């Protein structure tokens, strides 16, 4: 017994000896725990949300978006010289983090290098750039092979220094930009420093939401943003030394419908499903504050949004009548595919319970992300649940619902065919197009999830942005 006691004494001493010192907490570094580490900090390759959010801090872009999601000058002002020619003039003197001035040559080099990369996911969006001509250090022109009304809105790739592009610099792991934050190092955590005042920010990947919360409570991190289930947000709200700020969101959650399915092809069946979901109850009970019901992919405040779309009310009996009127045998068995994410599975079980009184027997298939997304792209589903994140341009309507845009040409995963809608989309008649989509229901709209950020001292104030970006870190107090 004596030996066992000695062992436990040694173990306890080890544990106590390893305890973190308070000195660590005194350093002026701001630490943020993130659910997913960035995959690639080269803006020509980045597609995941974390990399894109960080790249907004590391690089500057030609254009930005205002509150109504209209493109506004970022690094440069522009003139539309013809539908196929755009002239950009740098409106400020910017400098890269390695000290070199940012010029029109860097912009040309960035976009030309993007077009030369065969494995860059953003390349296809710019395939119609015929040539880029630099007039002087501040001015350049883009020539397109075909007219593109949304060309300017696409110019959101971070600008890289021409000199480093030429030397095949590895921007993915050692980014050099001209944004408000400068790259310091990336080992197990990513460290950036704010250019204006030298404030360091460290981003650490912590996958598990409970652990992220415990780290904030313990003071091991100072800021969390998004990616937490509401009960953990409520828990954080109850902590006196932690502040939780919420904001309305713009990321659109929906149920995708397979329009080739013999049952779901019937509009009344889709209407029945829409009426079988009690969305206000879900938002009230299991969503974070500031979540709002959605009508279209783009939010009402967007210039191509539609505030007039009335939400489908929860009317299970009416839904049942619609199904019966459609000649569907009840209960209607439907398969709902979702990922293995805990919150997604929770939504699925809620939907299953809510749809039952309407005569819908929802079978949940929870699949690993890769398999799930592959099934969705292949059209191997009846219903699925997903969220559009960070969408800014109304072109999404055409790509998601246009008859010619089934994968791999676009994102029309439900294989929806509608000539009337196609015409409206080509006319860019957004009110009419969104109304038709809302009536035809190739998507069943759910909500725009509210954004939130939780923080503690030394952070004094941090407000989350509607699309979940981390731009606020550049001005964080």
């Amino acid at each position, binding site marked *: 017994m004596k*030996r*066992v006691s000695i*062992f436990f004494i040694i173990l306890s001493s*080890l*544990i*106590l*000896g*390893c*305890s*973190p010192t308070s000195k660590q907490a005194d350093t002026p570094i701001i630490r943020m725990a993130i659910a997913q580490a960035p*995959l*690639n900090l*080269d803006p020509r*390759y980045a*597609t*995941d949300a974390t990399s894109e959010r960080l790249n907004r801090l590391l690089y500057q872009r030609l254009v930005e978006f205002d509150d109504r999601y209209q493109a506004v000058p970022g690094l440069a002002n522009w003139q539309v010289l013809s539908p196929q020619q755009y002239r950009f003039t740098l409106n400020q003197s910017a400098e890269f983090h390695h000290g070199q001035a940012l010029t029109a040559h860097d912009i040309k080099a960035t976009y030309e290098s993007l077009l030369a990369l*065969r*494995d*860059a*996911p*953003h*390349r*296809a*969006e710019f*395939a119609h750039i015929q040539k880029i001509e630099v007039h002087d250090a501040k001015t350049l022109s883009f020539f397109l092979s075909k007219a593109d009304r949304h060309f300017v809105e696409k110019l959101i790739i971070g600008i890289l220094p021409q000199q480093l592009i030429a030397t095949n610099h590895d921007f*993915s*792991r050692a980014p050099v930009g001209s944004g408000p934050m400068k790259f310091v190092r990336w080992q*197990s*955590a990513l460290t950036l420093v704010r250019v204006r005042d030298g404030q360091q920010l460290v981003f*650490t*990947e*912590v*996958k*598990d939401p*409970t*652990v992220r919360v*415990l*780290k904030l*409570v*313990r003071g*091991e991190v100072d800021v969390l943003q998004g990616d937490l289930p509401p009960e953990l947000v409520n828990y954080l709200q109850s902590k006196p030394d932690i502040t939780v700020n919420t904001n309305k969101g713009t990321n659109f959650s929906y149920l995708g419908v397979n329009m080739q399915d013999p049952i779901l092809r019937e509009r009344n069946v889709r209407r029945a499903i829409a009426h079988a979901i009690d969305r206000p109850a879900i938002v009230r009970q299991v969503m974070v504050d500031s979540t709002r019901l959605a009508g279209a992919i783009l939010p009402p405040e967007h210039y191509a949004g539609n505030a007039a779309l009335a939400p489908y009310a929860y009317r299970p009996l009416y839904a049942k009548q619609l199904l019966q009127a459609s000649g569907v045998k009840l209960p209607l068995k439907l398969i709902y595919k979702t990922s293995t994410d805990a919150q997604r599975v929770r939504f699925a079980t809620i939907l299953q319970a809510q749809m039952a009184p309407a005569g819908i027997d929802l079978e949940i298939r929870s699949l*690993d*992300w*890769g*398999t799930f997304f*592959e*099934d969705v*792209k*292949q059209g191997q589903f009846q219903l699925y649940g997903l969220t559009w994140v960070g969408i800014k341009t109304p072109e999404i309507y055409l*790509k998601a619902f246009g008859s010619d845009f089934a*994968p*791999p*040409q*676009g*994102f029309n995963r439900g294989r929806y065919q509608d000539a009337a809608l196609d015409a409206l989309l080509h006319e860019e008649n957004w009110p009419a197009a969104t109304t038709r989509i809302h009536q035809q229901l190739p998507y069943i709209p759910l909500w725009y999830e509210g954004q939130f950020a939780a923080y503690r001292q030394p952070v004094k104030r941090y407000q989350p942005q509607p699309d979940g970006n981390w731009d606020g870190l550049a001005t964080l107090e």
Partner: protein
Amino acid sequence: MNLKHLISRLLSVIPVVFGVVLLTFLLIHVVPGDPVEVMLGESASVADSAALREELGLNQPLMIQFGQYFNKLAHGDLGRSIHTKIPISVLIKERYPATVKLAVVALALGLMIGVPMGIYAALHAGHWQDFVITIISVRFSAMPAFWLGPLLMLLFAVWLGWLPVSGMDSPGAIVLPALTLGFGLSAILTRMTRTSLLEVLNDDYIRTARAKGLSERAVILRHALRAALLPIITIVGLQMGSLLAGTVITETIFSWDGIGRLLVESIEKRDYPVTQACVLIVSLSYVLINLVTDLLYQVADPRMRHA
């Protein structure tokens, strides 16, 4: 040590490794998904996709692709990650030592807790001490890592403030993940040590050792425990193999950048070359551990050298 046996065991590893490489390659090509689509995204044009597929050699017959893959592998080239573009050998070098470190500490904790408890239980078989240890070990083995891990965090990190919640930054960061794994391991080792020891404690040679006047400590540690070691080595070998394969849940909960987490992340993101390399490394770990276990048998039991 029988050199001939060692060489023959080493040679037998070659077809196993080849089989693993072939199987991994074929399985990766069977799972749904297209690496080109992963690289270029959904909006890529058909022409661009076709061009990249050709450039990567993905339109070639499977066996030619395997030949090229095997050739690169033989030259130590594991390829690059589709998403991060980082050479996979760099990723493995970053991640695998972390897994080995965690596995070794967890195993050491498991042995330090499990073997003494098993001996103690065997020596007090049928008494209350045995009963208490049995209950503790059953409890430990029934506690899943996703429950035990956060509980340990809450106790040692949040309430007591002794250890960091997660991460790999401070030396103490390894304690909680190692305890999470070590507790479960110790439970298995306790049960196995107790059972093995009980089987030999009544054997004639133990009685003879006692009759010769050896101390009880010498009888247990030098004679009984050595004879009971074989099943314990087997369990330790199997557990070490599974620890080196990466303990995904524990690594995820504690933000421990190990190979298990890398493997699961690569599967989720359809990063095929990374998945392929991770499976290969994990399989090789198993092969190596089996080899070491086999050699340890001979150290523990001289009769095995002549078998």
